[in-house]
């Protein structure tokens, strides 16, 4: 070892029921660098950072700061050791001023307002964090609030700053300013950990990058200067060639789902989906690839009827359903496997039976009353057919493991005999067996003639299952590929926003 690293995470393992979040992850961060930690959703970035910041305790592995072994029991322990974390959701008191928020919980006993404000101002200037210490936080923009969060960490003299997807809430200009601030902090001898999956920011702001995939470190401390975005994208999505056997394709039939000129806004009221045109035919799986946050989520919600389209149409089996509410779309044969299993697809506190009949309870009623026996029978049938392992059916569904939750959800949706399936991240976070089971169900469904639209961040999955593959970037469909004979590096470039020469959109 030439120089002791500021942070060293060695062979970190962290398991949750049904999921291994970190499987021997490594991370080594030198003083005075901006270090990107990259990975898809579910790659284990957040878990690893939570281990470093004392939120989780690792099942195995070591956390070393400047070569010294640490065992954090609480986030406060990590803070004392000099680790500051800026979370995605800000933890500020809106009615307090900037200075009050910065010193909250870390101030001497007696304070003079002017002193504190002057000192906060001085700290802010040192790092190029333009702010007004006497303004209440509720008046500030998201970018300014983030600067307050960074100031909080600096006030506590954090030597290691973790920023969890810091640019997600920022405008492009604010994001560029943030890049300058990070450089200031690195030049001051601090280490900055920058979690992101926006590749141009990583190549723009960071010195080195560590890439996680499936809970493991697949590339450690890669110098960013000699690496291009496409390589990083390739590392994030994996480079193993064809992980699974391609199921034999069928000849696709008539168009079941047709989307034309579709536009929609994101959560913050900014355009997130631009002019999407796509068709899914009976008996084919159309995959949509893309780095997270490029409009896939919003597109799926518009298709499901949970987000309204600002322009364009959605056709389901030749019927215009653009303005139909979710229940009517389901009645027209659209089933939807949402990205969030618990909380959207399933109600966590309700029982297995209650969740199993979410789509069909209207069929189990006599007058105003629900027929308990008929609902239980329906649930038992789903559980048997789709191999869901459960305790008593009256227990809350939240007690099931991730894989069984997803079997129940997918079973409920497919069990209705739909014409079109929209599946968003159906295998994310599942263990190997669970992934295989869900993929088999989707393929079997396609083979019965159902049209399947599969949105995934796992390129292997898309290459294995899709009959056609579309790549989304910044809300648009950038390119279409034939998954049977496309190079993943070219797909990776398309995901990073570089239009391939021969790919037809």
């Amino acid at each position, binding site marked *: 070892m030439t120089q002791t690293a500021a942070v060293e995470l060695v062979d970190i393992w962290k398991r949750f029921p049904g999921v291994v979040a970190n499987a021997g992850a490594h991370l080594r961060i030198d003083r005075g660098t901006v270090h990107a930690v990259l990975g898809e959703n579910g790659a284990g970035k957040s878990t690893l950072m939570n281990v470093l910041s004392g939120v989780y*305790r690792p*099942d195995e592995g070591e956390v070393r700061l400047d070569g010294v072994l640490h*065992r954090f*029991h609480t986030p406060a322990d990590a803070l004392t050791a000099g680790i500051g974390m800026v979370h995605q959701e800000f933890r500020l008191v809106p009615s307090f001023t900037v200075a009050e928020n910065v010193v909250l919980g870390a101030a001497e006993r007696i304070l003079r307002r002017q002193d504190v404000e002057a000192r906060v101002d001085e700290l802010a200037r040192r790092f190029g964090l333009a702010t007004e210490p006497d303004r209440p936080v509720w008046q500030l923009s998201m970018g300014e609030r983030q600067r307050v969060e960074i100031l909080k960490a600096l006030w506590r003299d954090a030597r290691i700053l973790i920023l969890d997807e810091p640019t997600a809430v920022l405008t492009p200009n604010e994001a560029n300013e943030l890049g300058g601030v990070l450089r200031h902090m690195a030049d001051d001898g601090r280490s900055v950990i920058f979690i992101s999956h926006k590749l141009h920011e990583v190549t723009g702001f960071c010195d080195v990058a560590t890439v996680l995939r499936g809970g493991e470190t697949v590339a450690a401390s890669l110098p960013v200067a000699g690496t291009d975005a496409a390589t990083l994208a390739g590392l994030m999505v994996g480079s193993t060639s064809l992980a699974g056997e391609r199921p034999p394709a069928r000849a696709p039939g008539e168009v079941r789902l047709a989307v034309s000129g579709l536009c929609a806004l994101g959560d913050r009221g900014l355009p997130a989906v631009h002019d999407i045109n796509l068709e899914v035919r009976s008996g084919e799986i159309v995959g949509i690839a893309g780095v997270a946050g490029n409009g896939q989520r919003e597109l799926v919600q518009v298709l*499901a009827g*949970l987000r309204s389209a600002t322009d364009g149409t959605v056709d389901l089996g030749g019927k215009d359903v653009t303005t139909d*509410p*979710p*229940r*009517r779309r*389901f009645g027209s044969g659209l089933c*939807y496997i*949402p990205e*969030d299993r618990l*909380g*959207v*697809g*399933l*109600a*966590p*506190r*309700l029982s297995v039976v*209650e969740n199993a009949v*979410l*789509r069909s*309870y*209207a069929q189990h*009623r006599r007058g*105003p*009353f*629900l027929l*308990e026996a008929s609902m239980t029978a329906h649930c038992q049938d789903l559980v048997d057919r789709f191999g869901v392992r459960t305790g008593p059916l009256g*227990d*809350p569904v939240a*007690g099931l493991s991730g894989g069984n939750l997803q079997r129940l959800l997918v079973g409920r949706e497919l069990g209705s005999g739909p014409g079109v399936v929209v599946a968003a991240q159906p295998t994310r976070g599942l263990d190997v067996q669970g992934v295989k089971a869900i993929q088999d169900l989707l393929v079997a469904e396609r083979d019965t003639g159902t049209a399947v639209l599969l949105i995934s961040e796992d390129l292997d999955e898309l290459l294995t299952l899709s009959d056609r593959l579309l790549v989304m970037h910044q809300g648009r469909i950038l390119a279409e590929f034939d998954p049977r004979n496309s190079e993943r590096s070219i797909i990776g470039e398309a995901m990073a926003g570089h239009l391939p020469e021969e790919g037809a959109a």
Partner: protein
Amino acid sequence: MRRPVLVRRDRPVRGGQPLAFAVGLVVALLVGAVLLMAAGHEPMSVYQRMFEKSLGDSNAWSLTLNRAVPLGLAGLAVAVAGSMGLWNIGAEGQILAGAMGAAWVARIGGTWPGPMLLTGMLVGAIVGGALLALVPAVARARIGVNEIITTLMLNEIALRLLQWLIHGPWKDPASFNFPLTPMLPDQAHLPMLFGRAHYGVLIAGAVILVFGVAASRTAWGYELRIAGSSADTARYAGISLKRKILTVLLLSGGVAGLAGGVELSGTADRLTEGISNGFGYAGIIVAALALLRPSGVAVVALLFGAVQVGGQSIQIIGVPASVSTILQAFILFGAIGAGVFVRYSVRLIQMGVDASGEGEEAT
């Protein structure tokens, strides 16, 4: 060195809530005993008197049941809203509004025959309570205004309205300027059941039963549970949240209003400022202790009725009635405190050493 840490259980302890409730009761009685001794009373004899006067004979039971009626209806009102994740803190105001609605019907229908007048009064009470809940319901459903604030503020408005009515237009000309309405006509009183218990006991029981069945056995109740568990899941399943919020808050207001109407025609002879006696606020505690379940509401309301009746009975022997209020508060504290252990267990964590796999159960 070791330190205790709360660890979430995989599933709550079965039958934990009644147990927690019993713990709360014991804690309350013990703390109460200390307070009584400090005030120079003999705790056992005070408790004995409280028990005899609230549950000792049929007359005592009739008083307790009468008390449980407004507590149960107010608790149900809070629980119905709560099962959807809404907090109706305005049951107190809605009780007043219900009493005003019933009193208004009694004013215009003073000559109607009994059954017709009573039905009219109870309908007036439900409408009154629902009307007061209408503003928070619409504001919440349409533009997402926090119903806790709006329902709470309307309590004050309902109280001022009632004060204006009994000081002004509805004042009894023969009351020597006291703020009282005229006495209700004789046929405006609910018939008696036994002892001093009136028909309100049956009405409250029936309403709680109907809601209990509706909540657990009907498609309406199922949709309510979905919406209460996760708003996103409800949207996904195509359940209209706006309509659910509106109906649930109106029903909640209506049930609380009914409590005011029953209280007026059951135990009062006229509309006064003190018609509610804080039942609306007590209802929040009842609903919380009942875990928002209608069956639980009935049990807790009965127990709180007994504590309140018992508390009044000991004033005669010189113990302040506030003892019963203190007891109620400690039951709540104790039960909620014990309730934590239904969902969490305590583990002792060894400091400085990784704690995975070790640590003792010490519940």
